[in-house]
C-alpha cells in the first residue's frame, strides 16, 4: 500500500537572492526585508514567522534602505535615487519619487514619524515630510563632502547623526548646520590609505553615537563633546550592519565574517548603578556578509549574502519551550514555486526571470523498496520562457493537461498555449486576453483545464474560460466581507463545482462555479492558511495554516468534518510541532482516496484519514529504518501518519499517476556552491 516510485528531481536550480536590508515593526510584529534583486518580503512574527507577503522585484530597482511608517506603510530607497512607497494590499509599488540627490544610500525616519531623512551620494541629507498619502520634499541639510552612508535620528528629533567616509557629522535639524564633526580613525597600519567607511550609525537617546565601520570597529562616541568613549574591535573586516534594541539596552552588529556580535548595557559590578556597554555574545550562523541585522523582543534577526534569514532566539528573554525558543532559518519562500501537470508528467519551475518546463524521465524496470532504478529515459528540458519587461514573475501555473501555461508579473498576465507532439514543442501566446486581467497574485487552472482562475490585485477572482479559439471573461467573484486583502491561495475541486480562495486576512471563501455565486465562508482562524486543497471525491476542503494546524471543512455541509474535529481533539503527532516551516502543498492519492499527501521543507507525510489518529502518547517511528519492521510490528502499520524525511530540503512533492511520486529537492550545498567565496578566514590548523 505504501510503496511508491519516486522521481527524485534536483535539477531545479532555484537560487534565492541575498538579503540587503530589513526593518522590524514591533507594533505590527512584522519584519520587512529587501533582497538584492529588489524584492520585498514581509514576515509575520506573531504568526510562526510566516512569509506573509512578497512584493516581486524589478530589474531597475535596487534597495539600500527600508523603513516602516506606522503599522502599514513601507518605504524603500535605493541606488537608482528613487524612494518607493508600497501598496501592501496590491503588493506593488504605490508611487516612486526621485530625491534628486543621486543614489540614496540610507534612509531614516524620526521617532514621531513625521519626517524622513535620506543620505545621498552627493553628500546631501534630504528631509522629506511624511503626509498621509505621500511624502514631500522639505529641505536639504548643509551639504558636505563625501557620500552619506548612514543616518540616525536622535529621539528628540532635533539632531541627526550622519556617517560618511572617515567622518561622522551631527546636524542640527532646525538650522541644518553641522554641529559636530567626529573623525573616525582608519584601520591598522597598512590600511591607512583606505577610507574608513562608516557603514552604520545609531543615535542613542543619551546622546551617545554608536558607529560601525569598514575597519571592523564598533565605536561609542559622545555626541555633545565629539569624543570617543569606547572602541570594540569585532572583526578583521567590515562591520556592515548595526541595530539598537527598542529600550536601548542591547546593540547587535553584523560583520563581513558572518558573525553577529551583541553588546549589552550592563553594570560591571552587581548592585552598581553605573552601566557600560559590554560585548557579550557572538553568533555565527552565516557564511557571508551579514548585511542586515535587527533585534526583536526575543530574538536577533540577521540576514545577508548567503540568502538565509536567521532568527536566533535570545534564551534569556523567551519563555522556555515555546516555538520562539527554536533557532529558525528561512531559506526558501513559503509558497510553491513548482507546478505540476500530472498526466503528461511535466514540471513547471518558476524563477524570478523565467519559467522552465521539464518532462520527467522514466524507467522500464521494477524494483524493491530502497532500490534505485536505472533511468532509461532521461528528463528533458522542454521549454525556457523568459519574461518580458523589468518586473519579476510573481506567480505561475500549468494546466493539468499540460497544454496551458500562465504567469503574471505586477504589470501583466501572460497565457501561453503549448503544443507538444512527440519531440516538437510549439508555444503560442494567447494575444487577446480579457481587459479585466491586469495583474494576478495567484493563478490556477480548473481540473479539466477549461477555466483559468485569476486572483486579481483587487482581491477579486476572475474566472476566464480558455479554449483554442478564444479566451473569455466568465465571471468575477468578490469576497462577501468586502475585504481588500490579497488572495494568495486558490483551490478548485475536481468536479469543477467549487472554487476556494484564501486571503491574507485569513478569510477562506468558497464559491460555487456552477451557480457562479458565493457559497460560504470558512470560519476564520487566526493564522494564515499556508496550503489548501479540495478532496476529489468528498469535496471536503483541507487547509493547513502557518501555525501547523490542519482543518477539514465539508463544503456541502458548510461545517467542519468529524475527522477535523477529532484531529483538533486528539492532535496529530506531536512531532509535527517541530516543523519549522509551513506546509506548502497538499495533494490526494487517487488510488487510495483516504490518503492525503502534504509536505514542508524537511519532510513529506501521508495522512490516512481512514485510520485512527494516534494520540500524543504514541511513539514516533522514523521512516529511516523501514527494514527493522517485522511482522510483530504490524499494528504500527495502522499509524495514520506516515512520514518520510529522506528527501530534503523539499521544494515540491506531488503524486502523479500509478503510484509515482515526484519530489523536487534543492540541496543547500548546491546553493552554497553558487555563492561568491566568503572572506578569507584563518581556521585553526590551516
Amino acid at each position, binding site marked *: 500500500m*505504501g510503496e*511508491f516510485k519516486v522521481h*527524485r528531481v534536483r535539477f531545479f536550480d532555484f537560487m534565492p537572492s541575498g538579503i540587503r536590508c530589513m526593518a522590524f515593526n514591533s507594533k505590527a510584529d512584522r519584519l520587512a526585508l529587501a533582497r538584492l534583486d529588489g524584492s520585498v518580503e514581509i514576515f509575520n512574527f506573531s504568526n510562526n514567522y510566516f512569509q506573509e507577503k512578497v512584493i516581486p522585484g524589478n530589474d531597475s530597482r535596487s534597495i539600500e534602505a527600508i523603513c516602516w511608517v506606522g503599522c502599514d506603510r513601507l518605504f524603500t530607497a535605493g541606488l537608482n535615487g528613487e524612494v518607493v512607497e508600497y501598496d501592501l494590499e496590491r503588493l506593488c509599488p504605490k508611487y516612486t519619487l526621485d530625491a534628486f540627490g543621486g543614489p540614496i544610500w540610507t534612509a531614516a525616519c524620526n521617532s514621531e514619524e513625521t519626517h524622513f531623512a535620506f543620505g545621498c551620494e552627493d553628500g546631501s541629507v534630504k528631509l522629506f515630510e511624511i503626509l498621509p498619502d505621500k511624502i514631500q520634499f522639505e529641505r536639504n541639510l548643509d551639504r558636505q563632502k563625501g557620500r552619506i552612508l548612514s543616518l540616525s535620528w536622535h529621539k528628540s528629533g532635533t539632531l541627526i547623526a550622519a556617517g560618511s567616509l572617515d567622518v561622522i557629522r551631527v546636524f542640527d535639524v532646525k538650522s541644518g548646520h553641522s554641529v559636530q564633526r567626529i573623525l573616525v580613525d582608519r584601520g591598522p597600519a597598512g590600511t591607512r590609505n583606505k577610507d574608513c567607511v562608516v557603514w552604520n550609525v545609531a543615535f542613542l537617546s543619551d546622546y551617545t553615537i554608536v558607529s560601525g565601520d569598514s575597519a571592523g570597529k564598533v565605536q561609542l562616541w559622545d555626541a555633545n563633546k565629539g569624543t570617543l568613549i569606547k572602541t570594540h574591535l569585532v572583526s578583521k573586516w567590515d562591520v556592515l550592519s548595526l541595530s539598537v534594541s527598542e529600550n536601548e539596552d542591547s546593540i547587535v552588529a553584523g560583520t563581513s565574517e558572518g558573525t553577529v556580535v551583541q553588546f549589552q548595557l550592563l553594570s560591571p559590578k552587581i548592585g552598581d548603578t553605573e552601566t557600560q556597554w559590554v560585548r557579550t555574545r557572538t553568533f555565527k550562523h552565516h557564511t557571508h556578509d551579514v548585511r542586515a541585522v535587527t533585534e526583536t523582543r526575543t530574538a536577533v534577526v540577521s540576514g545577508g549574502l548567503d540568502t538565509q534569514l536567521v532568527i536566533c532566539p535570545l534564551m534569556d528573554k523567551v519563555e522556555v519551550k515555546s516555538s520562539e525558543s527554536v533557532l529558525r532559518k528561512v531559506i526558501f519562500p513559503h509558497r510553491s514555486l513548482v507546478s505540476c501537470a500530472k498526466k503528461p508528467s511535466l514540471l513547471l519551475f518558476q524563477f524570478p526571470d523565467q519559467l522552465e518546463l521539464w518532462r520527467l524521465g522514466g524507467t522500464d524496470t521494477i524494483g524493491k523498496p*530502497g532500490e534505485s532504478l536505472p533511468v532509461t529515459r532521461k528528463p528533458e528540458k522542454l521549454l525556457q520562457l523568459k519574461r518580458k519587461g523589468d518586473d519579476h514573475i510573481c506567480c505561475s501555473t500549468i494546466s493539468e493537461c499540460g497544454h496551458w501555461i500562465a504567469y503574471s508579473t505586477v504589470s501583466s498576465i501572460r497565457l501561453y498555449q503549448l503544443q507538444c507532439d512527440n519531440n516538437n514543442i510549439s508555444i503560442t501566446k494567447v494575444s487577446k486576453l480579457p481587459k479585466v486581467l491586469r495583474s494576478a497574485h495567484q493563478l490556477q487552472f480548473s481540473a479539466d483545464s477549461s477555466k483559468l482562475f485569476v486572483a486579481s490585485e483587487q482581491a477579486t477572482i476572475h474566472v476566464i474560460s480558455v479554449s483554442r479559439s478564444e479566451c473569455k471573461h466568465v465571471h468575477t467573484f468578490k469576497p462577501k466581507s468586502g475585504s481588500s486583502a490579497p488572495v494568495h491561495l486558490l483551490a478548485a475541486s475536481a468536479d469543477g463545482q467549487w472554487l476556494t480562495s484564501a486571503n491574507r486576512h485569513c478569510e477562506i471563501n468558497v464559491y460555487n462555479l456552477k451557480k457562479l455565486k458565493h457559497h460560504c465562508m470558512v470560519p476564520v482562524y487566526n493564522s494564515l492558511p499556508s496550503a489548501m486543497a479540495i478532496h476529489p471525491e468528498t469535496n471536503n476542503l483541507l487547509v493547513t495554516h502557518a501555525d501547523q494546524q490542519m482543518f477539514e471543512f465539508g463544503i456541502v455541509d458548510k461545517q467542519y468534518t468529524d475527522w477535523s474535529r477529532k484531529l483538533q481533539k486528539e492532535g496529530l503527532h506531536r512531532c509535527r510541532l517541530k516543523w519549522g516551516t509551513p506546509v506548502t502543498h497538499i495533494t490526494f492519492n487517487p488510488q487510495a482516496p483516504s490518503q492525503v499527501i502534504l509536505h514542508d521543507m524537511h519532510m513529506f507525510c501521508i495522512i490516512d484519514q481512514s485510520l485512527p489518529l494516534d494520540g500524543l502518547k504514541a511513539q514516533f517511528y522514523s521512516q529511516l529504518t523501514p527494514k527493522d519492521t517485522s511482522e510483530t510490528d504490524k499494528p504500527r502499520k495502522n499509524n495514520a501518519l506516515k512520514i518520510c524525511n*529522506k528527501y530534503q530540503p523539499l521544494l515540491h512533492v506531488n503524486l502523479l499517476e500509478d503510484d509515482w*511520486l515526484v519530489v523536487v529537492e534543492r540541496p543547500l550545498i548546491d546553493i552554497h556552491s553558487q555563492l561568491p567565496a566568503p572572506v578569507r578566514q584563518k581556521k585553526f590548523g590551516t
Partner: protein
Amino acid sequence: MAELYEGFTLCGLAAGQSRENSGLLGIEPGRDTDHVIVTGAGRTVTVYKVSDQKPLGSWAAKQGQAVTCPAVLHGQTGEYVAVHDSKVLRIWRDEDINFEKVFKATLSAAVSRIHALPSSEPLVLFQRGAVRQLDALLAAPQQAVEEVLSEEEVIRWSSCFLEAEQPLLLFSTEKSGECFLYLQKLSPNVLHKYNIGSEGKGVCPIGFTATLENKCITLMCLYSNGCVYKLLVSLHPSAEGEQHLPKSLLMKLPVSEGVLHRAAIACLEEGHIAIVGAPPSASTGDRDFLCIWNTNFQTLQASKELPGGAYGQLWCNAGKLYVTHGKMLTVLPYRCEKSSLAAALGKLKQTSTQEVTSSPSVLNWNSFPHEEAALEQKTGMRTRRSKLNLKSQATLATSITQVLEDIKGVSREEVEEVLEPFLSCSPVSPQFQLGLAHIAVELLKRCQADPGFYPQSVLARLAQTGRLSHSSCPGFLMLALEKHDYFLAQLCLQHFPDIPEAVTCAFLKAFLSVADADLMQVSVDLEGVSLVDGPGQSLEVVQNGFSPVLLEEDSCDVQLTPPKLDQSSSWTDMSLTCPVGLKKSALLNEIIRSSYSESFLLPHLKDLSAQQVILFLQYLQYLYVRSSGDVYTQLPGLRAPTMTQIMDWVSLLLDAHFAVLVMAPEAKELLAQLHRFVRSQVRLYSELGKIQGTLQELSKIKKEQEIGLYSIEVIELF
C-alpha cells in the same frame, strides 16, 4: 627475480680504441660503495663518484709511459697503488696532484695485477706467478722474485679473498690450450695447483668469476662454447701436487654460432650471474647483450641490449654492474631476489634467516640426473663433460664410504680431521645428504658405545649443515640432552625440521631445571635474546619520551583496588625483570619458536613440575610484556619469538596445568595477573567491536550520497 634498472653513462672511453680493446684496464672499488677507480689502458687513473657521475680526481702518467695494471685503493692507508710500464710501482694519495712527483719504486719483475683487500695489505701478483704483500715488497723493491709458472704459461684471470684474516689469491693460467688454477695462500706460503682440463678443440675458458662461501671457493667459468661450469675449490686441499678439479655444468648459454669471443661473467648473489657478450637467446643475431641468469633454474631474469657492441668487460661493484660498450662505460644498478620454485608457483615462502640457511626438506631441483637427462635429450649425445659429472658423483659416493670407514675406531681429533674437508665443501645433492646422515648415525653409535667419546665440534658442524633431521638420525637429540650439550641442543632446535613433541618437551624440562650457574660455561647462541636483559635488570622503555602505561593497567581495576597500587605485585613492576638468565632465555626461546602440534604436545607438557611451569609462565609473561610494550609485535633479535607464539604457549601451559596452578599458592599472584590482563584485553576488544559497528555505518552513509540531478527510487512508507 632479478632485474636491471635504468643505467647511466659514467664516462666515455678514450679515443683510439679498437673493436677488440675498449681502452679500459679495470675498475676497482674506491673508498666507499659510491666511489670507483677507473683505470684507462693509456695513462690515466680517474676516481669517480658514481651517483653523481662525476670525476673527483684524475692522474695521468707521463707521455710514453703506460699504466699496465688497474690502480687499487689501499684500504688501510687510503693510498692509491698502480703500476706503469709493468715494473714501476706508484703510490699516491687524493691530495697529490702531479703523478710524476709521487712515490715511485722500480721492481725487479713485471707485475700482472695488484689486488686490494679492504682490511689487509694489497697483494701483488707478478706475471710469472709469484705473489707478494705490498709492504714486504716496498721494504725491498729490488728483491728477487721467483718464477712459479712454466714457460708460455700466461695468467688469464686472478682474484683474491680473505678467509679467517688470511689473504688468498686465486688465479688461472693458460698454456697451449690447457687451463690451470692456482690457489696461493700466504703465511704459511702454500701454493696449490689444479688442472681444470680443457673442453676439446677450440673451446677455451674466456671468463671467470669466483665467490667465497662456507670456506669453499666457488669458481664459475664461462667457456667459449657458452657453457658455464661451476668448480668447487676447497681451502684445505687434502693432497699435494697437481690435482684434477672436477667441474659441474651450471648452465649452457644459447650461443648461435657456437663460439663466444668477447664475453665476461660476473657472479651476483644467490644463484644469479651476469654475462655480457652472450645473447639472451639464439635468435638475437649480432647484437650484444648484458643478461642476468638464474643458475638454479637456468632462466633468463633480465637482459639489456648494449648499443655499439660490447668488449667483454664486466665488473660488479656494490650492487652495480659496469660494462663497456660502444664508446662509453655504462653503470647498471641491479637487484637480485632469491628465486624459488615456490615463488615461481605463487607461494612465496616467508624469508627468515633460518629458512635461508636450512632447507633440508626442500628437494633440490637442480640435481644432476635431472639436468643430465634434459641435456641428453637436447643434444642427443653424451658429452665428455657429462661423463665427468658422473665421475665426480661417483667420487662423492666413494668418498662417503671412505669417510665412514675412516671414522671407525679413530680418536676424536682424527674424526675431526677426516670430516673437516668433507664438510667444508658441501655439494648439494641427495647423496651428500644421505651420507651426512650415515656419518651422524655412525658417530652416534660410537658415542653410545663409548661414553668417553664425544666429538662435539663435529656433531655441531653436522647439525649446522642443516641437512640432518630427526628422522634421518634418531637419537641425535637425546644424545645432546644426555651429554648436557646445550649448544648442540640449540643448534638442533634451530636446524632440525622434525623434532617430535616428546623431545621438545624433554628439552624444555631440561632447560627449565638447569641452574643458571651451570650454563655459565656453555656457549649459547644469544642472537634471539640480543636485547633481553639479564635477571634483576629493570628496563625502561621510553619511546619519544613516552613511557607506556600498559594496556593491562586498567582504570577500572585501579578504582576497585586502589591499595594494590603500591604493592610490588603490580603487573608493571613485576614483569620488567626477567625471571631466567640470559642463556637460559635463549634456549627457552628456541623451544617457543619450535614447531609443534597442540594435541601431541599437551600430554607431554603434563610431565613438567609445578615449579617449572610457574617459572616458564613467568618467563612467557615477561616476554609478552616486553613485546606488547613495543610498537612491534616481534622482539628485537633475529630469532626472537613472536607474540602469537608466546600466547600459544601460555594457553598450552595453562591448559595442561590449570588444576595444579590453582592449587599452588605461589602461582596465585601470577594467575591473578594473567586474569586481569585477559579481562582488560577482552574489554579492549569489545570496545573495538563497538567502534567497528560505528565505522561500518559511516561507510554506508558515504555510499548514499552519490545522487545525481535526477534519479528514480522506490520507497515504502509504513
